[in-house]
């Protein structure tokens, strides 16, 4: 036969454990979210408080009451330490030493009650039973207050000082949400603690005969914390989305910039088929003006015009693909055609500057999980840099070599090696920083963006100088999961 008290404590316990589980999972999924772990420990402790409060109310003898009281001290130590930890991790403000004092004092209370005989701080010598919500609950009718109880009381005041200090410090921070967080979470903690301390004093000194019931108040505090933690998760999802959008945007800008650098040679490349079409059309007109047009020759001309038109269309399509603005999409991508296409984009530029382009990759290389456009961009950027490096170096060996190979069960590595001067030791550690450049014209965002792109693919991009001459840039990409 259970009454309202049972229902209240069961609900408090169940709610606390549910919240603990949810935030525990959040922490497991994202280990950087340490406040969620602190919350999880705190909520488990609150469930423990609810359970022991129920035990106290149902105690038949003073001995049994003392036993439950022991466990109550353990649970409230957990709750106190949990809040101290949460405030530290979540607010990031306040005086750490105050927190340590709280933990130490509450630790003394627990040690005194668990290691020493029961009732080291507050010993109930006679129980009374009073109706609470239509149910009889055990309450202290007479008790002895021992010195250790003063330690517990002072711990409460130090605790309040610690939280108040941290809350004020948070309130003064310039962040947009700092004030709301301070008021809501800090206010809830202080309010809950004041209520609990007040109740404890009334019971301990025998002023009011009532069962120990602090856990429902703790639930309000947990609710305030949960509200803020959930807001953070939603906000960080927004921030992440925004960061992705900005990354794609920046990648697009960098891509347009790189293509801009190549525009001269791309126009030249486009001029070839256009020139051929023009000359063929002019020749055809001359042939048609004759009395007996050479039909075989005309057929050959038309076939050539068609082929050149397709060639021009392919060049435009390649550029258009790179100029598109779109977000990162991972697909299974074969590296062979991708590398060939990028090489086609820079071939003219390389030829004009007498740079040989080499490409080697094993036939059986599996497809990688990649965004075709963005990986092309990385490769294009590395190739343009390589060609620039070789041109600037005035080297006798003028070569940029692209190589792709499998380096692990789930990894493909692509290398772009040039025969230039290499990267100077002062610049080498900083080449991937934005706005670090050795080129007269150029923003210096190419490599920074490239690294962001590769990392968004779950890969790595790094650089080193070769033993003999020039530098090598390497990046890894994950192998695509076979389609199921």
């Amino acid at each position, binding site marked *: 036969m259970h009454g309202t008290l049972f229902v209240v404590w069961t609900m408090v316990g169940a709610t606390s454990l549910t919240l603990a589980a949810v935030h525990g999972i959040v922490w497991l999924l994202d280990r950087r979210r340490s406040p969620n772990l602190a919350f999880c420990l705190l909520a488990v402790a609150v469930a423990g408080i609810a359970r022991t409060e129920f035990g106290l109310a149902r105690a038949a003898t003073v001995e049994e009451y003392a036993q439950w009281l022991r466990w109550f001290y353990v649970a409230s130590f957990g709750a106190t330490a949990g809040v101290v930890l949460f405030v530290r991790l979540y607010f990031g403000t306040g005086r750490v030493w105050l927190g340590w004092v709280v933990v130490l004092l509450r630790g003394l209370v627990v040690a005194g009650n668990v290691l020493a005989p029961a009732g080291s701080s507050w010993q109930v010598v006679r129980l009374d039973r009073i109706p609470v919500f239509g149910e009889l609950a055990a309450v202290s009718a007479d008790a002895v207050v021992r010195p250790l109880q003063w330690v517990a009381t002072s711990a409460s005041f130090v605790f309040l000082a610690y939280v108040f200090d941290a809350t004020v410090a948070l309130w003064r921070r310039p962040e947009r949400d700092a004030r709301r967080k301070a008021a809501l979470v800090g206010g809830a903690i202080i309010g809950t603690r004041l209520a609990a301390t007040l109740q404890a004093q009334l019971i301990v000194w025998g002023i009011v005969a009532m069962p120990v019931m602090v856990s429902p108040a703790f639930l309000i505090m947990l609710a305030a914390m949960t509200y803020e933690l959930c807001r953070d998760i939603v906000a960080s999802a927004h921030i992440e989305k925004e960061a992705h959008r900005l990354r794609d945007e920046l990648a697009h800008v960098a891509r347009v910039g790189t293509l801009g650098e190549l525009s001269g040679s791309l126009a030249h490349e486009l*001029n*070839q*088929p256009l020139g051929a079409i023009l000359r063929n059309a002019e020749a055809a007109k*001359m042939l048609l003006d004759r009395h007996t047009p050479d039909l075989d020759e005309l057929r050959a001309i038309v076939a*050539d015009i068609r082929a*050149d038109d397709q060639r021009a269309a392919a060049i435009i399509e390649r550029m258009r693909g790179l100029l598109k603005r779109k977000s990162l999409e991972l697909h299974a991508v074969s590296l062979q055609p991708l590398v060939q296409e990028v090489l086609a984009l820079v071939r003219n530029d390389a030829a004009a500057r007498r740079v040989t382009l080499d490409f080697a990759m094993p036939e059986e290389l599996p497809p990688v999980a990649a965004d075709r456009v963005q990986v092309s961009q990385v490769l294009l950027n590395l190739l343009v840099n390589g060609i620039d490096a070789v041109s600037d170096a005035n080297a006798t060996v003028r070569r940029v070599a692209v190589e792709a190979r499998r380096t692990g069960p789930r990894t493909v590595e692509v290398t772009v090696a040039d025969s230039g001067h290499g990267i100077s030791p002062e610049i080498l550690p900083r080449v991937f920083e934005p706005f670090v450049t050795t080129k007269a014209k150029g923003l210096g965002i190419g490599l920074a963006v490239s690294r962001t792109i590769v990392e968004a693919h779950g890969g790595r991009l790094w650089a080193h100088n070769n033993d003999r001459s020039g530098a090598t840039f390497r990046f890894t990409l994950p192998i695509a999961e076979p389609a199921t």
Partner: protein
Amino acid sequence: MSERPTVHVVDDDASFARALGRLLGAHGLHARTFGSGAEVLAQITLASRGCVVMDLDLPGLGGLEVQQRLAERRVALPIVFLTGRGDIPSSVRAMRQGAVDFLEKNAPQAQLLAAVSRALAADAARSSLYNRFANLTGRELEILRHVVRGRMNKQIAADLGIHERTVKLHRSAITAKLGVRSSAELASLARDAGVS
């Protein structure tokens, strides 16, 4: 002895070279296409006649290098350069080295044909000049070289160990064969023909 005047079209883009060859053919010119500088260098000899129409940005052996190699071999075929980009330093260099013209790849047909005609005309003029010089005997050529250097008959006679009168006879034979009237004219003609 000399070959038929031919337009040597050099472009690594086979389709473009073919199209240009067709167009020149349609205009009644004899054209041959080549895919690289090396190919055309292997084909051209001192006896080649006509002109070269060549892409400036050939991969491998570039247009300017082909021009230089031809000059080293004393092949004086006029060259019309085609380019996809208006590259001023290269065009200046090409012109200095004696290119006849420098055109955009997609230049109007009339402009292209005019440039080729000019090149062919220049080659024809040079070739007739060559033919005139070809009538000179070895001794006459030798004396001509001395004359061009501005040496007096007496000095030439001493150098060659012959009579001054013999030198004079040779000189009048030279002026008769080349159809020139004065020594100044002779010197400029000889310079044009590359006698030095």
